[in-house]
């Protein structure tokens, strides 16, 4: 056997386990869900194996010429999910950017320590981190106890089961996803460029907007994509902090699969969610592509 042929066989053998695993338990299942989304729901769960486009009609309605099954509540829920996911992304950037800047300008030893300290909470179980905010936001929770202790008992608020609670919870849970890419791009930012900008007479604000921000945009875009995607599909945070008052796309999908047992409709919702994710990923990749061409 030639050397090249040997290398080829070695490669095939090494890739076989991953190939089999991903074909059987990833690609196959995804194709199955995609086909379920255009099949008719069975009477008692399950599916009837024939063409049925109305699952999408229930959400999108008129554009598909389907007004009978259409219910605006589904479209509203999807729109609310996109709105809150965008809000979570914006808040995360705003909260993380100064912090990432701070860490990147620390002396090396302290920087390593700060990175460790910022990363560690990410390894706490997700459910534990969400629970922490239930303790804080519930009516008898820590927030109101603190307000009362400060003599501002009148200001006591019931944030539990509101959109604000869901946004706070999602930001807290997804923060490291935003912090790390931001840090990576701010760290690469050459301080000499900022100094040059100031020497040339730019105000600090101008320097930030025209030099720092464009140069760290890849980190912002990367962090935004990676925060937006899980924020859009998450159902644990809205179910615990939003209750039944703040339903999001994830809750809707979970319900269709585990409670309502309308799998084809759930599959259609999941496909719509994937479509949003695909748009975000392509936009992020395109953004990087054009930047790469300029740089």
């Amino acid at each position, binding site marked *: 056997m030639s050397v090249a042929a040997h290398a*080829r066989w070695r*490669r095939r053998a090494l*890739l076989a*386990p*991953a190939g089999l*695993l*991903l074909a059987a*338990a*990833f*690609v196959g*299942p*995804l194709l*199955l*869900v995609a086909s379920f989304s255009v099949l008719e729901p069975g009477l008692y769960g399950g599916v009837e194996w024939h063409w049925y486009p109305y699952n999408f009609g229930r959400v999108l309605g008129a554009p598909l010429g389907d007004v009978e099954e259409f219910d605006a509540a589904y479209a509203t829920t999807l729109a609310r999910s996109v709105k809150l996911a965008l809000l979570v992304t914006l808040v995360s950037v705003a909260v993380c950017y*100064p*912090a990432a800047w*701070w*860490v990147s300008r620390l002396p090396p030893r302290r920087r390593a320590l*700060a990175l*460790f*300290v*910022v*990363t*560690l*909470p990410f*390894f*706490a*179980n*997700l*459910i*534990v*981190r969400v*629970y*922490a905010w*239930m*303790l*804080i936001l519930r009516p*008898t929770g*820590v927030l109101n*106890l603190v307000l009362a202790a400060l003599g501002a008992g009148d200001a006591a608020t019931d944030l539990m089961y509101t959109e604000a609670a869901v946004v706070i919870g999602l930001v*807290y849970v997804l923060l490291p996803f935003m912090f*790390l*890419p931001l840090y*990576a791009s701010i760290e690469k930012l050459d301080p000499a460029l900022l100094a040059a900008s100031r020497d040339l007479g730019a105000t600090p604000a101008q320097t930030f907007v025209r030099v720092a921000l464009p140069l760290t945009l890849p980190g912002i875009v990367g962090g935004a*994509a*990676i925060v937006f995607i899980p924020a859009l*599909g*998450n159902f644990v945070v809205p179910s*615990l902090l939003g209750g039944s008052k703040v339903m999001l796309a*994830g809750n809707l999908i*979970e319900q269709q*699969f585990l409670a309502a047992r309308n*799998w084809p409709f759930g*599959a259609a919702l*999941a496909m719509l969610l994937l479509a949003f*994710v695909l748009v*975000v*990923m392509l936009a992020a*990749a395109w953004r*990087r592509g054009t930047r790469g061409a300029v740089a």
Partner: protein
Amino acid sequence: MTLRVRPLALYGSVFVLLLYAPIALIVGYSFNANVVNMMLWEGFTFDWYRAILGLPTTLGRAANHVDTTTSLRAAVVNSAVVAIAATVVSTLVGTAAALALGRAPFRGRRAWQGLLVLPMVMPDIVLGIALLVFFTTVGLPLGRGSIVVGHCVFLSSYVWVIVSARLAGLSTDLEQASADLGAAPFTTFRRVTLPLLAFIISLDDLVITWFIAGVDATTLPMFIYGALRRGIKPEINAMATLLLGFSFVVAATGLWLRGRRL
């Protein structure tokens, strides 16, 4: 310059404080002796820990204490079995893939890299329902086995990324391939992780497991999630604190080892 740095340092400290304060609250409350109102501090006790470990307590009936020790113990066992099995399998699968893709370029390498990145950028819930539909349609029973398969799908990708990075130093090729697919942040992420952390990621997963666990294979996160949906109870503080401590010790060890190799 000093004027610009100080507010930033203040902000940074507040940022870190807010990051830890919520979880610190749980730890604090887990030792609260108040059996009537769990939010008001009334003294120090180990009773909640004793309660979840099945030891005798002085709680009395006032706490409306329901003994869930048996199901908690089952959930811990399920989580451990799943995480160990999924870590072993995905380390083998992911490392093999990294060895195959790390060498000289060949036709189709980019496609393989793209395929391996996808499970990490896919929303969890989509992967969860896809696996549920698949297992049910094929007729495979839901349980520990199905959870292990589900975890292996995304853990293999993590292991592949981490091992590839280790093998290649900084492979620009890999970075480019994953960046094209919107996964550039993950290449950042890999710098602070280690295959050991696959164990923590498996232990943490709730969403995918939620769909494919069936009725008998409740894991620890599922157990806590279920308990939280029924209402907050002081025992949950103790459970959460133990889980928190375990995750931090394993993760800190992993990060420390990673740091030493750099």
